[in-house]
């Protein structure tokens, strides 16, 4: 197949790529440009470990085709930390014990990031609803709720 040229902002860098039209965004990120912080768990949009942020919205990268990100702003877990250190969500996930095996963590952090950017003062029910599309088998979700609440209170999300 003929590859398609696309241009996007990827983790704050202007980026030009050649992509196969059938590649998913997940495939592009993980296997073509080695951004392996975005995980793969089901390829059906059910587990959420591949969540990234496209133009401010949390997106399951296994459900989006690579050519669709042409002209967008994409942030992956690798692009979340800034020069002044980790995002408050990353810090809170570590400090509140919201990470056990950690395979779901990048997806949870990206989903929570997009959510907190729009909701500064969420209730626990709001958080639970927002994260419904992300599976965690280790923590029982409680410490994830606590971490997101702490990050929201820190206000830096």
């Amino acid at each position, binding site marked *: 197949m003929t590859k398609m040229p696309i241009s996007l902002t990827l983790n704050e860098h202007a980026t030009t790529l050649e992509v196969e039209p059938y590649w998913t965004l997940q495939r592009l990120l993980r296997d073509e440009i080695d951004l392996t912080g975005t995980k793969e768990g089901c390829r059906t949009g059910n587990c959420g470990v591949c969540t990234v942020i496209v133009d401010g919205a949390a997106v399951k990268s296994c459900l989006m085709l690579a050519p669709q990100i042409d002209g967008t702003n994409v942030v992956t*877990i690798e692009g979340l930390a800034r020069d002044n250190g980790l995002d408050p969500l990353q810090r809170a996930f570590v400090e509140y014990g919201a*990470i056990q095996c950690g*395979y779901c963590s*990048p997806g949870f952090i990206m989903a929570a990031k997009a959510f907190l950017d729009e909701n500064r003062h969420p209730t626990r029910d709001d958080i639970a609803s927002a994260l419904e599309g992300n599976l965690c088998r280790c923590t029982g979700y409680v410490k994830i709720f606590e971490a997101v609440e702490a990050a929201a209170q820190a206000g830096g999300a």
Partner: protein
Amino acid sequence: MTATTERQAIGKPLPKPDAWLKATGTAVYAGDVRLPGMLEGKILRSPHPHARIVSIDASAAAAMPGVYAVATGDDVGATRIGRFIRDRHALARERVRYVGEPVAAVAAIDEETAERALQLINVAYDPLPAVFEPEEAIAPDAPILHPDLPSYQDSARSTREGNVRNRVRHDVGDVDVAFAEPDVVVHETTYRTPRQSQAFTEPHAAVAQIDGTGKVTVWASIKAPFRGRVSIADTLGVPVSHVRLIAPAIGGDFGGKGAAFIEPIAAVLARKARRPVRLTLSRVEEFSAMTSRPSAVIRLRMAVRHDGTLVAMDASMVYNVGAVDDTQAGTANSAVSLVGAYHIPNVRVEATSVYTNCSPAGHVRAPSGPQTSFATESHLDRLARMIGMDPLELRERNALRNGDVVPSGHGILQNSGLDECLKRARAWMARELGSKRPHQGIGTAVSFWALHPNPAAVDSAATVKVDVDGSVAVLTGVADQGGGQWSMVGQVASEVLGVPVEQVSVIAADTEATPYEQGTGGSNTTYRVGNVVRQAAEEARRQVLRLAAEQLKVDEEELDLRDGNVRVRSDPSRQLSVAQVAQGALASPAGAIIGTSGEAREREIREHGHERADIVDAPSFACHVAVASVDPETGVTSVDRYYTVQDVGRALNLLNCTGQIEGGVIFGLGYALTEEIQSDNGINLNANLWEYLLPTAPHVPELTVELVEIPSTFGPFGAKGVGETPCIPVAAAVANAIDDALGVRATQVPLTPERVLAAIREQRPELLENRA
């Protein structure tokens, strides 16, 4: 050990060092490994539940551009592999026994090419009659899955015949006499439990590389690297020293990553292709062809006196272990775990595990625990109602106490926290639970995970090195599947050596670089591995103190070791940093400071005689309370509040401890309410995440976790196991709450709306008839 109450690291809610990597996407899992020239592997799987392989023609696939290797059963050694019983080959030879069994594999330039090549492999099958239920499988004329079963190598003695994988009997007292006692109340019910998937978020992944000398290195999501390498070596027909297995970060395990399945296939492909090969499983493959908790049918009869004394238990349990059994002797521990946390003088339990043409059975968090607990803890509730006694009181009356021989006969109970857990649960209920809403009920259940440690056969070792800057490196074979094993290792070394935990690095789970370790699991890793790390660190500590004493010209007893410094107690201005001591060591006859566990362990055993295997030193007990509401019209059960109190011996890390318990409870809630692998003629139907229903964030009830800390005698700093206990009794607690709410007993897990509604129709039809 450190006599001061202020601890360096133990007991604190410390974040895990690897969590920083995981939060930034920089932790490397097996599927993240990238090697130059790496190919993608794919597996061709059997479409038949039972068939003879007549022929395999892979010539067209092998000739395809971009295909570097095609492997079949001819490429794997004749030696069978398996976690406990060796009942399979990495790729099927001659016969397939379940839908999804690996038959051939391809390595190609990319995934799409590999997929197309699989379609070109032509396998001729001769279908054989298949059996899917244990009753069919033990019928006299049933097709036999493993004709050579009696000759298979097993890790423990087992009774094998026909399709019976194992049969275990547990016999105490005289059951028949006990049931014939006048004035006993007898109750009999049959309980059914489902196949449950581990459903870790990271599907299996392996990357295999072979060097020019034929030595293979495999990065794999396997929590028991020293066990896994044996299967790879046997499949390749090479010594284990030619296999290096590295377990990097693992994305969850829950029992499902304890044995080799795909790793030997990746290695065979890499050898044939002469290039590195990555093999990752799809979610469909995970659900349809990998291991799950075996389903069980448990017929249970018990007798109780009117005063609440349990007098007898008579039971038979049948497990469906599929075509390949990766459970430990199938039923050996489950026969006794049915007895639970209680003293019952007369017991007769027969447990049988049976091969069928279903997908393989394996370990899932607390193997055999949830099945047996559902039966026994449900049954106790019914017995309590029958004699008009509070269900918790019935449990209190019959609870095992220190000095009792635990039902397994494996030892005498000591350091029990059961009474304290029961007391705390009762106090919480009195304090927190007011009057119930309509159709709301309260259910209690007890959990018991018996650890039978044998420190003399600990199957683990550790090395601790003190570097010239005072930092510490621990070498341990233990894998971390998310449970925090590596942070535990760092904390223990930090505590013993008086070096801040940030200065301790853990080098782990690499069969070439680290000492032997049997494998993470069974809630005994902290106990076993924590102890050998403690012993190795103590050995290094002795060296530090001895060298410091020489330099400072004082007795070793005068010295205090904290925060990376050795100080003279009576004159703290006289001090040396650990870095100075370590540098000095290099110039001394002793050389670098290196502690190993072996000598210290032998000494401990000599001094304390704690090689005794006849004690249960670290029993893990918990008491659970579920508050659930049931809609009598639909049978929908929702858990409103959940409480658990667990004895953890000593919480080495509060965050990890409570995290294990919270996660375990929600794991148990999935088992209780929704999780079940459904199959038809051996084909798993809901082999995906939209039909196999896992708990998600909105399903989490208001959850309260309390800890009791009654230390073990020999665990590191008094620790006991934590991880299995919280998932065991949840289904029973919820079923008991349903009974309390509506007066109906649901006897099949998961407690789906259909099943609860069926129980209402059968046992309390008036609840439905009263409706307009």
